[in-house]
């Protein structure tokens, strides 16, 4: 580990790398063109949208190899395009940074983004607003790329807001259910809470160091007091929780993924939610400097992964289960980045693997819905394996990958995180380790339930479905590609990615072998495979013969899980109600001022409604009286400050 041993490398981009700003500009330009041309671009808009992301992906690969060609110690390239804001001491450049961490995210975003684009060409074929959709989609990709390519926190924030905005548009525009307003609102508010955390964190950095660039902040982490690093860590964590749907801001994510088409659901699952993980991984010097902040991150990850699993077990909506499983898998990533050291890279590996298998699962779910007239209730599926073989197989691969059956990718990415959790010293290691282990078992259970109920058992279809059919190739080809990725990615990526990231980004030497504190790696591996198989078998045993068509009354635990563990209720009582009351009080006071208060009081005392009626809103004398009162208060306040 390195405490504040952050080295600033001189690294102005040169050669081919000096044009890596194109990565952002190409999708952004394409999005702009699609929006500006309007209906004129309807016929070919989706093609342009796909092509721009495809080109970005190819470029990303070129830059990636370019970067790989450099010696390990100076694998980074910066570009300062122009000075964005300069107010005296504060100077913010429109600057970009391409380093191993950015490179990994660029490939993930453009790669998965490209596949989703292609898939969306088929899926959105009948949608009259397809062009607009691709425009937002492109802007989303551009903002996401800006987020991971900025070389300072303000650039990150700009991308962050852009992603939020684009996702808000995508959620709202393609919301197919009546609860649109609430879901959009929820997503918006929770994201704003996160954004506020991030914004304040940026201002705290500026206040302390007069800089917001990664280099400037990380090189000076040792100048922060421990209180400041803790505050910074927690604020960044709030930001990350908002964007990535982590406890206690998890409620919006499933709503945002459950409602709209699988396509927009997927861009959230595979790309947007990774922004939080990126933020924490990128800020690793800050978290390394404060173990408490790290512990909080790990705890948030552990709590969230359990919440996600538990709720995932109780849901009947295919996309909702996948949505909560996303929440839970991101919990694993947060656990990883919270453990610090070598676990940063593990979290990134899990993120990449998750990108593959979750994309495959979501698209598979879309394919199933396509065949079943947009039915989403897994109680009304069953026996589909006979009718849609490709979907069945690819979904099966994704299922085995996510629950972590060797040698599929989930095993290589999730199991090391569990092992790493056990390596944490003290009781924390036991708690985090067992939480992660329990999560693995639960994941196996609910994903098996999902798989078995959808593809096996008796057919429990609604009456309008006669002959379900496989989806067209434009949808199945991405499915197959993703299945291959889900199967192989873990084994292929695990070591190279660690070697790629650890030395330059996280300052961990390759040869470092963590000390096993509680359980040896072998024991953990055996345990986790065993509990996974156990959970899977239990899921298969219980649901091999299908299930009842309706939700049955159940005990308190299941009811709580069905109600999202009362997350919404808590939000409502803790935040919404007091907020409403505060607002009402303010409105009352604002309309009536002191006069209203006095008259209201007088009416209450005298019991006469006649007096109350006189206190309508907007009398000049009421306004004047509150102004006078205010003036008196100001004068008194000055005197109190002066004398006191």
């Amino acid at each position, binding site marked *: 580990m390195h405490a504040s041993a952050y080295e600033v490398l001189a690294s102005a981009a040169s050669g081919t790398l000096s044009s890596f700003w194109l990565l952002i500009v190409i999708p952004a330009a394409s999005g702009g063109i699609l929006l500006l041309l309007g209906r004129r671009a309807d016929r070919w808009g989706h093609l342009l949208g796909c092509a721009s992301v495809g080109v970005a992906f190819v470029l990303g690969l070129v830059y990636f190899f370019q970067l790989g060609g450099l010696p390990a110690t100076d694998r980074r390239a910066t570009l300062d395009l122009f000075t964005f804001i300069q107010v005296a001491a504060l100077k913010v450049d429109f600057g970009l940074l391409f380093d191993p961490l950015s490179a990994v995210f660029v490939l993930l975003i453009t790669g998965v983004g490209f596949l989703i684009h292609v898939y969306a060409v088929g899926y959105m074929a009948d949608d009259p607003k397809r062009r607009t959709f691709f425009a937002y989609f492109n802007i989303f990709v551009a903002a996401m790329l800006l987020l991971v390519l900025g070389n300072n926190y303000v650039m990150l924030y700009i991308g962050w807001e852009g992603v939020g905005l684009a996702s808000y548009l995508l959620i709202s525009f393609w919301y197919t259910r009546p609860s649109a307003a609430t879901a959009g609102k929820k997503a918006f508010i929770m994201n*704003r809470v996160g954004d506020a955390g991030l914004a304040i964190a940026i201002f705290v950095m500026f206040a302390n160091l007069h800089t917001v660039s990664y280099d400037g902040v990380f090189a000076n982490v040792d100048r922060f007091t421990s209180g400041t690093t803790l505050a910074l860590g927690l604020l960044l964590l709030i930001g990350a929780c908002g964007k990535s749907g982590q406890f206690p801001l998890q409620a919006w994510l499933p709503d945002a993924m459950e409602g709209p088409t699988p396509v927009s659901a997927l861009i959230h699952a595979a790309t947007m939610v990774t922004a939080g993980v990126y933020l924490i991984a990128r800020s690793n010097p800050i978290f390394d400097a404060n173990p408490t902040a790290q512990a909080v991150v790990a705890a948030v990850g552990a709590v969230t992964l359990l919440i996600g699993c538990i709720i995932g077990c109780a849901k009947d909506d295919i996309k909702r289960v996948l949505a909560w499983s996303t929440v839970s898998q991101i919990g694993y990533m947060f656990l990883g980045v919270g453990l610090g050291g070598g676990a940063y890279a593990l979290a990134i590996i899990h993120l990449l693997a998750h990108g593959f298998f979750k994309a495959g699962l979501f698209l598979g779910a879309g394919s199933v819905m396509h065949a079943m007239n947009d039915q989403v209730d897994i109680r009304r599926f069953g026996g589909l394996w006979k009718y849609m073989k490709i979907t069945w197989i690819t979904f099966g691969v994704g299922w085995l990958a996510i629950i972590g059956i060797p040698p599929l990718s989930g095993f290589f990415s999730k199991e090391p995180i569990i092992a790493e959790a056990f390596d944490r010293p003290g009781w924390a290691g036991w708690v985090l380790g067992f939480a992660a282990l329990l999560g693995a078992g639960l994941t196996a259970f609910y994903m098996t339930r999902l798989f078995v109920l959808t593809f096996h058992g008796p057919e429990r279809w609604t009456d309008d479905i006669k002959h379900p059919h496989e989806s067209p190739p434009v949808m199945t080809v991405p499915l197959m590609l993703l299945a291959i990725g889900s199967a192989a990615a873990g084994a292929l990526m695990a070591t190279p990615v660690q070697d790629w990231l650890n030395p330059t980004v996280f300052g961990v030497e390759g040869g470092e072998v963590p000390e096993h504190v509680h359980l040896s790696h072998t024991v953990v591996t055996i345990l986790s495979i065993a509990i996974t198989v156990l959970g899977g078998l239990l899921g298969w045993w219980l649901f091999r013969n299908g299930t009842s068509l309706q939700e049955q009354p159940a005990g308190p635990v299941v009811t709580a899980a069905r109600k999202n563990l009362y997350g919404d209720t808590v939000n409502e009582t803790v935040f919404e109600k007091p907020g409403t009351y505060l607002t009402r009080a303010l*409105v009352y006071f604002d309309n009536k001022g002191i006069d209203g208060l006095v008259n209201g009081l007088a009416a209450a005392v005298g019991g006469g409604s006649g007096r109350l009626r006189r206190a309508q809103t907007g009398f000049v004398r009421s306004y004047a009286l509150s102004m006078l009162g205010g003036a008196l208060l100001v004068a008194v306040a000055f005197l109190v400050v002066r004398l006191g």
Partner: protein
Amino acid sequence: MNGFTIATPAQVLAIDVRLPDLDYAAMAPMLVLFGAACLGVLVDAFAPRQSRHTIQFALSFIALTVALLAVIREARVGSRELTADVALAIDGPTLFLQGTLAVLGIVALLLVGERALEKGGPFVSQAAIPVGSEADRRQAREEGATEVFPLTLFALSGMMLFVAANDLLTMFVALEVFSLPLYLLCALARRRRLVSQEAALKYFLLGAFASAFFIFGMALLYGFAGTVSFGGIHDAALLATTSPLLLFTGLAMVAVGLLFKIAAVPFHVWTPDVYQGAPTSVTAFMAACTKVAAFGGLLRVLYVAFDRARWDIEPVIGTIAILTMLVGAILAVTQTDIKRLLAYSSIANAGYLLVGALAFSKEGLSSAMFYLAAYGFTVIAAFAVITLVRDDDGEATHLSRWAGLGREAPLVAGVFTFLMLAFAGIPLTSGFTSKFAVFGAALGVGEAWPVALVIVGVVTSMILAFPYLRVVVMMWLSEPAEQSPTVAIPGAFTSAALMVGVLATLLLGVFPSPVLDLADRAAEFIR
């Protein structure tokens, strides 16, 4: 300039009355506007009725352009001086704010002069005719009063004087010169005349009330310092022989008068009513230019006269800033009328500006000035859009009427969406850069109060984004109402104003550096 001597006819008494030095070049922007306004009055008296509007508009436009050129010339010369005894300070902030006022004034003038949206323009012809009478129905088709142009010029000249005033007395006179025309302009709406008149009366009464506070504070400060010039008060604060209580009570009273104009809580009560009732082009003018002028004055008072009292000012005005941000943001959420919503948003924005002002540093000053310019363009453009959304009763300002507007008029809805995003402080709009600048400046000081203010600022701007986005969602996602309002095709003037506003909002968001630079170089008061 040479002094001259007069003598009474009887030669009994010969007092040496020396005119102070007057730098006419530095006063040119104000003098041009005063002169043009007086000319405008003559035009109204003598020009034929049909051509009045054209002449008045051209006259005002030219006058403002000349004033702008005069400001630019003065800025190029680089003059920094006190003139007219010490009544006027011609320095960086004065010139920057006067320039801003001239540009924003031109853009607002375009809205005031627009007649394509409604026959006869947005102003009533004869305000005295009782509402609903036979005569009132007759005058519905008559041309609006053209006196609005000289009144606008009077107001602008007063504002320019206000930001240059270097003593409390001149400042008070300037305050009245720019307020009085505004009271009148508020009363002149063609539609919903009763609401308009009520708004004007409220604004007038409360404005007079606030002026009384100002002048009372001035008296106390005179009692304290023996002078009303800012430099004198600054000096007296150090060598005080009189009770400092006089200073602080006087400061409090003067502050109340200024806080009223910037619409800070609890002196904001008039804002929603007046913003809603006034003709929308006048609201745009007030929201942009009054804010610039009032803040210019407040900044000068705080930075020049009371900078030695900053430790006492910070907690009090800081608390007011926090209240202003909170009340503005939270109450904006509950509004159902778009003009009232923007009124509360303007209140919250006053809070953000106070955050910059309370930094008491060069950066605080420059960022607040930048904020004023950026906000002015955005808010004028926003009100310009509001003038376009109309039904049979004139403008349809109730939010429910805006439902589904995106389908009717995607371009206008798109522009308004962009402006709302700017208000919400989304990056790459001027709303983001300006907020970032003021918060950054406040934190640059590195003390407890500014940090607290910034935290409240960030949190409230997150809250405030909600009502803006709600309007956006309303326009694009809701089903249109039964009889949805039509979006009028903007005339050339409104189009121009909209274009300038939107472009400025975009450019100041993406390439803010030149203007930030300009503000930074200008940010030094002289005493």
